[in-house]
């Protein structure tokens, strides 16, 4: 087998476009490839890849391997594994990067175990050890209470990156690269799962991932009502979105699509209102990238005040309506 070289990014495609994770992975991959002075490749699998190979090049890829097959329209593990297997065999990369997303978090462990190699998931930072050329993989562990740096000797070294943890490079259409179509035959006898229905539960209004302002409520909100009234009124004044920590979702007060945290959505808005949220590390993992965190909590000892920039100690039922009214007045001037 040829020597393992270069970085291979497993790009994601959603409705014919790159979700932000793909350009983040390319940005991170570009940095690592430059440190190694090796190539950055990108694998794009779909029923139709279209012009996206050009996009991948504009965002930093040297080579784009495109695999088109009707079975690849949506992520299905047993189909995508066959693609990943065959392309990795052909490309023989040193490092494989995926997103810590419903697709990457599902595919990467299968791949690592199939290839008998090491994997670190949900990485916040990746770099190359100049001496060993090994990938230094920084992950958050213990629900965000600590971080660990992992290394592995076996190749390819596989890592998934946390959404929004890596930065894309600036899009540059003049970048040169090569698109290489790869023919992969998906053996349907190896596909043991079948998606029979897809249910969308997306909340209406501003999407959490895109919102510049997020009003997030915690266990202390006590039920569904505040999410539709107190919190929503504040969010509406600021054209923001309403989110929740894990307990409100597990209790069924709000849909899981509103969950912000380690196992929910990762957000990084300009302004994050944490309302009746204690500030557990698992929750902070999902919002610590926010520019300004504003905490409202009746418990002055709540951990959230250690991570917030501004805070009010008081019951949210008293504080938030007054805040909303005053903001409305100030913004109207």
């Amino acid at each position, binding site marked *: 087998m040829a020597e393992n070289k270069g970085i291979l990014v497993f790009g994601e495609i959603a409705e014919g476009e790159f979700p932000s994770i793909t350009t983040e992975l390319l940005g991170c991959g570009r940095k690592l490839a430059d440190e190694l002075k090796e190539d950055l490749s990108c694998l794009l699998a779909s029923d139709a890849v279209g012009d996206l190979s050009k996009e991948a090049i504009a965002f930093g890829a040297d080579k784009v391997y495109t695999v088109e097959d009707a079975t690849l329209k949506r992520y299905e593990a047993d189909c995508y594994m066959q693609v990943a297997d065959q392309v990795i065999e052909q490309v023989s990369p040193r490092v494989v990067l995926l997103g810590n997303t419903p697709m990457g978090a599902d595919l990467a462990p299968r791949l690592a*175990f199939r290839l008998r190699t090491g*994997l670190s998931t949900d990485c916040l930072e990746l770099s190359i050890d100049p001496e060993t050329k090994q990938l230094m993989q920084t992950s958050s562990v213990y629900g965000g209470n600590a971080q660990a740096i992992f290394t592995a000797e076996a190749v390819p070294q596989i890592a998934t990156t946390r959404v929004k943890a890596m930065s894309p490079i600036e899009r540059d259409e003049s970048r040169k690269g090569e698109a290489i179509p790869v023919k992969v035959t998906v053996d349907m006898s190896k596909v043991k799962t079948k998606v029979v229905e897809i249910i969308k539960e997306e909340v209406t209004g501003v999407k959490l991932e895109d919102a510049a302002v997020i009003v997030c409520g915690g266990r202390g909100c006590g039920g569904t009502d505040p999410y539709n009234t107190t919190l929503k009124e504040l969010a509406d004044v600021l054209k923001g979105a309403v989110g929740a920590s894990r307990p409100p979702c597990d209790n069924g007060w709000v849909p899981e699509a509103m969950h912000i945290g380690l196992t929910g959505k990762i957000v990084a808005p300009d302004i994050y209102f944490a309302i009746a949220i204690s500030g*557990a590390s698992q929750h902070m993992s999902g919002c610590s990238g926010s520019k300004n965190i504003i905490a409202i909590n009746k418990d002055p000892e709540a951990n959230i005040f250690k991570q917030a920039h501004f805070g009010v100690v008081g019951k949210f039922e008293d504080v938030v309506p007054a805040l909303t009214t005053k903001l409305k007045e100030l913004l109207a001037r």
Partner: protein
Amino acid sequence: MPINMIVCCKQVPDPEAPPASFKVAGDKMTVPPDVKPVVSPYDENAVEAALRIKDTLGGKITVISLGNNLTRDVIKKPLSVGGDELILLEDAAFEEGDSWATANALAAAIKKVGEYDLIFCGRQSADWNAGQVGLGIAEILGIPAVSVVRKVEVVDGKAKVERAVSDGYEVVEVELPALLTITSELGDLRYAALKGIMAAAKKQPIVWKPADIGLEPSQVGAAGRSVKLAKLFQPVRETKCEIIEADTPAEAGANLAVKLREAKIL
């Protein structure tokens, strides 16, 4: 049709403990004695998933836990709610393993158990958060797997499950035997009845050492790792929080609005 089920459960320090109680010493995480060990929360959801199948179709639930010096009261919890048998992979050699070493040992134990239709794991552990072991076991056993499952039914000899994704969920049919990793939306583990607690107290777990599952000590725990832990640390986060004060909470809320405006944040 009674279903043979296996659930993998891990003992971890209570992840709900205050963040300040987690302290790195050397390259190990330590917690004070008042932070009690618990069954990792997503593994509890996995036990609940198995119990719901047993409620409707009947069957047997075998729980497997890996570690060393496991606290009996904690690790027996699945037995107190309706689990039938508990196997402990318990030995000093199992300590400090990574996802590979853990999944490899659990898969070897599952092979020894032999009969299974469904294997349940939590979507990720509350300590290392890696989310690899379940999918890894499936890969080693060569069986299909669905991750991040929020609902499970067995219909016509297949599992019909809901897999949570960012904008909703997918309904997936999977052939048996299969492995499922379970997420919290499935629901909390039921409370144990007194009768269950008494029965669990009497039941003795089966303890297997590496040799009992056909593995050398060099293949398990720290010696069997594929990923090296180079460093464990706690980044210092220092945010200065400006507390807005006033005579009443409502006034403080209004003052906060003024402050955010002045600071040009809004």
